[in-house]
C-alpha cells in the first residue's frame, strides 16, 4: 500500500523584475513535516522544485535577522514560524510590507540602513577610541545601569516592526521603531555622552513625532525589544528638554 505523504500548500509572492511588471503569486505543494519551519519549506522548494525562488536566510535560529517575511499577513521570522501552526491550512508567504521589493521575497532595506547610520548608533564620548584598554580599564557600569538600556540593545534589525508599522507605511521619512529603539539604547547607556547629538535628529518631526502609538511594532518584535516604549520615553524626554530650554535656557548648553 502506498504511503500517503502529507503535503502543505505554500502560496508565495513572485516578482522577477526582468520578467514581470508587478508581483504575482505561485503555489507549491511541499511535503509536510511537523518539525519544519516556513523557511525549511522555502528551501525545499528552491532545492528540489524551483530554483528560481529567491529569499534571504542565514542562521536558522532567530538571531541573524535575515528571514523576515509576511506569513499569512503577519510579519514573522520564517525560521521561527512552524508549519504545524498552520497545517492543514495553506500558508501565504509575501515579502515584508512597507519595503520596495527587489525580487520575490527579497526586499530593499536601504532606507533603514541609512536611518541606522543617521542616529549615530555607537558610544559617543571623547575617549571612546583612546581611553586605555586592557585589564582593569573597562568603563564601570553597574548591572542596574546595564538594565537601563539592555532591552533596547536586543534588536536584530529584522525589520518586522517596520513591516507592521502603519505610520512608516504612509510616511517613509518616519525614523521608525528599530532606529528609534537603538537611538534610545545608546542614549540610556551610562557610558555614552552623545544624547544631544543624537536627539537633534531623532526629535525632528520625522523622527519620533509621527508615531501615533499603534504599538504593532512591539507586538511583532521577535526579541521583545518593545520599540513602542522606546518611542514613548523618547517623546517624554524630548518634551522635558523643550520645557527646560524655555524655563532654564542657561542650563541647556
Amino acid at each position, binding site marked *: 500500500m502506498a504511503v500517503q505523504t502529507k503535503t502543505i500548500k505554500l502560496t508565495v509572492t513572485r516578482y522577477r523584475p526582468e520578467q514581470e511588471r508587478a508581483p504575482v503569486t505561485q503555489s507549491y505543494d511541499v511535503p509536510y513535516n511537523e518539525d519544519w519551519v516556513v523557511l525549511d519549506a522555502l528551501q525545499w522548494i528552491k532545492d528540489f522544485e524551483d530554483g528560481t525562488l529567491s529569499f534571504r536566510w542565514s*542562521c536558522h535560529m532567530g538571531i541573524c535577522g535575515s528571514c523576515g517575511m509576511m506569513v499569512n499577513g503577519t510579519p514573522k521570522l520564517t525560521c521561527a514560524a512552524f508549519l504545524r501552526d498552520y497545517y492543514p491550512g495553506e500558508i501565504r508567504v509575501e515579502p515584508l510590507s512597507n519595503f520596495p521589493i527587489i525580487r520575490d521575497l527579497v526586499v530593499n532595506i536601504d532606507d533603514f540602513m541609512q536611518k541606522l547610520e543617521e542616529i549615530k548608533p555607537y558610544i559617543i564620548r571623547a575617549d571612546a577610541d583612546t581611553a586605555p584598554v586592557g585589564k582593569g580599564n573597562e568603563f564601570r557600569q553597574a548591572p542596574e545601569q546595564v538594565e537601563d538600556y539592555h532591552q533596547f540593545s536586543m534588536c536584530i534589525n529584522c525589520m518586522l516592526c517596520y513591516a507592521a508599522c502603519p505610520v512608516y507605511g504612509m510616511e517613509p521619512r518616519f525614523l521608525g521603531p528599530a532606529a528609534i529603539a537603538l537611538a534610545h539604547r545608546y542614549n540610556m547607556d551610562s557610558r555614552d555622552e552623545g544624547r544631544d547629538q543624537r536627539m537633534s535628529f531623532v526629535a525632528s518631526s520625522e523622527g519620533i513625532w509621527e508615531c501615533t502609538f499603534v504599538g504593532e511594532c512591539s507586538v511583532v518584535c521577535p526579541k521583545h525589544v518593545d520599540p513602542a516604549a522606546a518611542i514613548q520615553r523618547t517623546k517624554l524626554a524630548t518634551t522635558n528638554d523643550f520645557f527646560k530650554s524655555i524655563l532654564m535656557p542657561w542650563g541647556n548648553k
Partner: protein
Amino acid sequence: MDNISHDILIIGGGLAGLRAATAAADEGMSVGLVSKVYPMRSHTVSAEGGAAAVVREDTNDTLQLHFEDTVKGSDFIADQNVVEYFVHEAPNELIQLEHWGCPWSREADGTVSVRAFGGMSVNRTLFAADKSGFHMLHAMFQTTLKFDRVHRYDEHFITKILVEDGVCRGVVAIDLRTGEFRMFTGKATILATGGCGRLWAFTTNAFINTGDGLGVAYRAGAPLSDMEFPQYHPTGLPGTGILITEAARGEGGYLINKDGDRFLKDYIPGRMELGPRDIISRAMMQEFEAGRGIQGHFGEHLLLDLRHLGEAKINEKLPFVRELAENYVGIDPVKAPIPVRPVVHYMMGGVRCDIDGQTPIAGLYAAGECAQEGLNGGNRLGSNSLTECLVFGRRTGHAAAQYAKGLGDRPVNNLTKLADEEERRIVARFFEDSSGDERVGLLRAELQQAMERNVGVYRTKEGLEQAKTDVQALQQRFKRVRLDDKSKVFNTELQAALELENLLDIAETVVEPAILREESRGSQARRDFPDRDDKKFLVHSMMFKTPDGPRVEWQESILEWPNAKLKEMVPVARQY
C-alpha cells in the same frame, strides 16, 4: 566592468572583517568592505557563550595560564608565538570593544564578569548573557558606521581573487541586487569570510557558511592548512543542529546518559563537563556505542541537564538557551533536560598565514575563522574564537595597511582582462550551457551526507577513502549542474551554485590530510591510528590545489621563538 578601488579590500563583514576595517581605517587607509550579506547578518551573530581574556584581578589568572590552556587544548600543534601574542592582546581587544558599547555582563562593582568554559583552567570568559556574539557583532558593526573611511559593499558575492605576477590585486564580485560583475582592486586584500560548516549535514553553522574565502584562496594558489580539524561541539540540538552554548555547562549544567549518569566521570573526571570539546564529543560517541544513548526522533542523543540551576539563573545567564530549546525541541530546560549530540561547529583550519595574517601570496591576508594563523591547532578552546577575530582582525588590518603604504598605484589593464574572463566563465557555464541535468540542491545534500558518513568524530582510512571517492564523483557531477534561474537580479540559485563549487573544492582539503595524518590528535580521531605521533606530526598540513588533486606540504609547528615573554610548552600527554 566597473573597477572599484580602495587601499585595502576586506572580504567578509563579521567580527574579524569589521575589526580589520577599523584598524586599517585608523591607519588612514580607504577601506572597501565587501560582504555577501549585510554585516550584522554574519555568523558571528550566532556565537553564544563568550570571549576569553585575562581581565580580572580576583581570579588568580595569568597570561601564562591562558597560554598553557590554549596550547594544551590545541593538542600541541598551535604556533606558540601566535598564542603568546593572542593572550597578551586579548584583554586589550575585549576592553576596547567594551568602550565601543558591548554590553558585557557585569559584577555589582561595575567590572566585567567572567564565566567558566571548557578547557580553561580559570574563569576568564567575558559574556553578554548567552548572546555574546550577537552583542559583539552589533557593537562592532555599529561602531564601524562612524568610520568614514570604511565603504561598504553589502550583498556582493566574490568569485575570484585576482593575482598578477604572484601578487594579489583584488577580487571579482557579483553585485547580487543587479547581477552585475564588479572588479574590486586594492593594494592589499584581507579575507575574513568565516568557516565552512555547511560541508556537513549536521552543523551549527548558518546557511551562509560555505567557505567562500577558502575556495577562492585555494583556487588562487594559497594553501589551506589544518583542514582535517573541524571542531565537533558536544551540544547541538538534534534535527536542526542549533547550538546550545558551552556556557550551559560553564554555568553548571550536567551531561547525562540514558541511565541518568554523568558519564564524563569515566572519561575526564578531572574536568567533567568543563573538558575540551574534542574529548567530550568523543566520550559522547562512545556512550552511543555502548548503548547508553537515547533513541529520539532524530537518532541518538544524550541529555544536557540544567534543571538544578533553577529558573532564575537560567533566565539571567542562559535566556537564549531556554528560548531555543523551547522553540525548536519543545523543551523547557527549567523542567526537563535538553536532548543534545555532537555537531560540526568550527574549522580550526583555514588559509595558512603568519601572525600578521599574511598568506604566501603577497598582498593577500586572512583573519578570523577562515585563517589558520596558528592559534587553534588540533582543537580550539571555546571562547577563544571571538577573541581571535578581534585580536587578529586588528593586527591583520594594521599589517595590511603598513604593506599598502609602501606601494604606489599600479595599472589595472591586465586585471580587467582577468575579471572579464571570470565573468565570461560564469556566464558561459551557468547561463549559456543548459545541457546538464544535475540540481545544486541535490548535489549539496549528497556532499553533506558523504561528509557526515565518513568525516565525523571518529575516522578510518576506509571511510576517508570512501569520502574521497564520493567527493570526486560529486565534483564530476557538478560539471553537469544546470540552473533553473538564468536571470540577473538577486539570483540566489547562481549564488548557491558558486557556494557549492567552493564547498566541493574545500572538501578535498579536509579529506586528504585526514587520510595522510596517520595519528589521533585534537579533533582528528583515527580508529586505525589511535595514538598521537609527535615524531611525525607536530606539524600543520598545507594543501595546495593542483589539476591532479590536492598536494600536501607539512610545516612544523612553532614551539620556540625568539624573545619569548612566556614560558614555552614542551608537548606532553594531554591529560586533564
